[in-house]
């Protein structure tokens, strides 16, 4: 199956006992033993070393998901050894290509050119792929960001790696952070423009409000109503949904003299991405609230490796640029302002 490389984003906030505000600098000092006078470079170095250490520990193996991650140190085996994990203190990032995959399945290994050349893969052996990640860990702040590359729904380590990173940034008085889905506003807007309107769903609960001897009340005093509106011919773009909604909301539902317009119903908007890969459902009133569409790398990273994975140097540059130009202005607006004396 051809790979569909994509990028997923997560935001997480360090959680300290009693909800005290603690930065990544505090974390490196209190948990990792960084000196009090540590500069940004030193803080990042401590975080990076801690990350590498944890990559070799038990938390890099997820028995329930049957996945593991690590960094293959044999240059002869790891084709992207030179792109392995490293840190950059100027951008406050830890990034690189790691290896990860599933284990615990009884599988065999066969040479497709020579069927005699086959062997058994034991339950304790993992079949690994290459995955790129980038973690933003600002020493002066308590909120970080994770970007994880995956190769599609099946070929990914996203839930496992996300959980691993949350464990990396926990310990003693630091509880495990709760990651939240995130996508830069530019991608959200892009998705809305290109997505196709699948349907509108109007929901309401109707309560029988007329005294009668044999009304609905005898069976149920309330019932829910669900009205669906789907475009039949042609595609309607997500950005045109507003116009469609304003037309539909005037339609009435109910008895003569007691009809309710659909604008009084709870409205849901269902969008589907242009490739038909995924559907997103929004409450109409909260549709401007952030949501995280999947960001496919096709067309964003031009070069592709032999195995279908994106070129990791280009992906690294893409992620760094994305962080600098799109994510940080959104996530850290305070970096863009300065006090004037």
């Amino acid at each position, binding site marked *: 199956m051809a790979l569909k490389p994509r990028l997923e984003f997560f935001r997480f906030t360090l959680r300290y006992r009693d909800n005290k*505000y603690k930065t990544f600098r505090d974390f490196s000092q209190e948990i990792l033993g960084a000196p009090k006078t540590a500069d940004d470079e030193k803080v990042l170095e401590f975080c990076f070393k801690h990350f590498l250490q944890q990559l070799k520990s038990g938390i890099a193996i997820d028995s329930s998901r049957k996945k593991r991650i690590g960094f293959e140190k044999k240059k002869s085996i790891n084709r992207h050894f030179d792109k392995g994990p490293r840190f950059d203190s100027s951008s406050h990032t830890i990034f690189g290509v790691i290896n990860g995959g599933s284990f615990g399945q009884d599988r065999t290994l066969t040479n497709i050119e020579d069927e005699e050349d086959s062997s058994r893969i034991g339950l304790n052996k993992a079949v690994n792929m290459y995955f790129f990640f980038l973690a933003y860990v600002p020493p002066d*702040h*308590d*909120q970080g960001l994770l970007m994880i590359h995956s190769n599609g729904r099946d070929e990914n380590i996203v839930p496992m790696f996300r959980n691993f990173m949350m464990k990396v940034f926990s310990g003693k008085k630091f509880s495990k952070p709760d990651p939240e889905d995130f996508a830069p506003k530019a991608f959200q807007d892009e998705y809305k423009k290109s997505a196709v309107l699948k349907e509108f769903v109007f929901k309401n609960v109707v309560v029988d409000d007329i005294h009668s001897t044999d009304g609905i009340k005898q069976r149920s005093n309330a019932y829910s109503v669900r009205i669906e509106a789907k475009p039949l011919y042609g595609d309607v773009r997500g950005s045109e949904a507003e116009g469609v909604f304003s037309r539909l909301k005037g339609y009435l539902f109910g008895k003569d003299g007691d009809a309710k317009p659909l604008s009084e119903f709870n409205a849901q908007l269902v969008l589907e991405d242009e490739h038909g890969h995924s559907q997103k459902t929004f409450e109409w009133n909260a549709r401007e609230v952030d949501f995280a569409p999947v960001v496919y790398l096709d067309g964003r990273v031009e070069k592709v490796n032999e195995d279908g994975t994106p070129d990791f140097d280009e992906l690294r540059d893409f992620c760094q640029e994305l962080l600098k130009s799109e994510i940080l202005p959104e*996530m*850290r*607006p*305070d*970096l*863009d*302002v*300065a*006090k*004037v004396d």
Partner: protein
Amino acid sequence: MSLKLTKYLQLVRRKAAEFESIDINGKQDEGKFGKYVLKAAFGCISLLLFFFLQTGFSPAFVAYCASSLAILVGLFITALVFGFDKFYQQTSEKEYADAKSKLWDTQAYNYVKQFGYITGYTIVQSIFALLLLSLSALFEKQSQINVFELRYFNSWSVEVFSPLLLLGVACLFSAQRVVVIYLLLRITYQTLFIVASMVQFMTTKISRN
């Protein structure tokens, strides 16, 4: 001990000019509008009005301006005193705030400084305008001299002192008229900025809480 008045006045003037071209994010406005165009436009309007106002300001206008400026000075001093307290509270917890709170804190800090300096400078300008207008009140007759009717007197005699004095008076009141109009335009512009930005700042602050 002498009061360091000139130093303070120069500081207020310099800082007000600096903060006029800085936004609340601390970014320098590279546009030429505020820096040159507006000042040139006010200068041109002042000169134009000077040619129209041949006999200077009427006593009614002087009285009207004096009362308006006095009210403005009073209001601005009150706003200045309460503004610092209400608009910005510096606490040690600010450095432990999230990104948005840090942003709002910096914006509030910059705005309060901008508000303070521009309001302060507007008060200073109003006081100067009042002082200049008081010349019209003190020397009512002389201030209404029509400078465009003066003719060059080409003879040097013992009576030359009188025409020279007349020329001096004419120059003084011509300058007074131009400067007063210029100051009134600046004060109006700055007052509009102060009121509009203050309303925006306060309503946004309420929405954030």
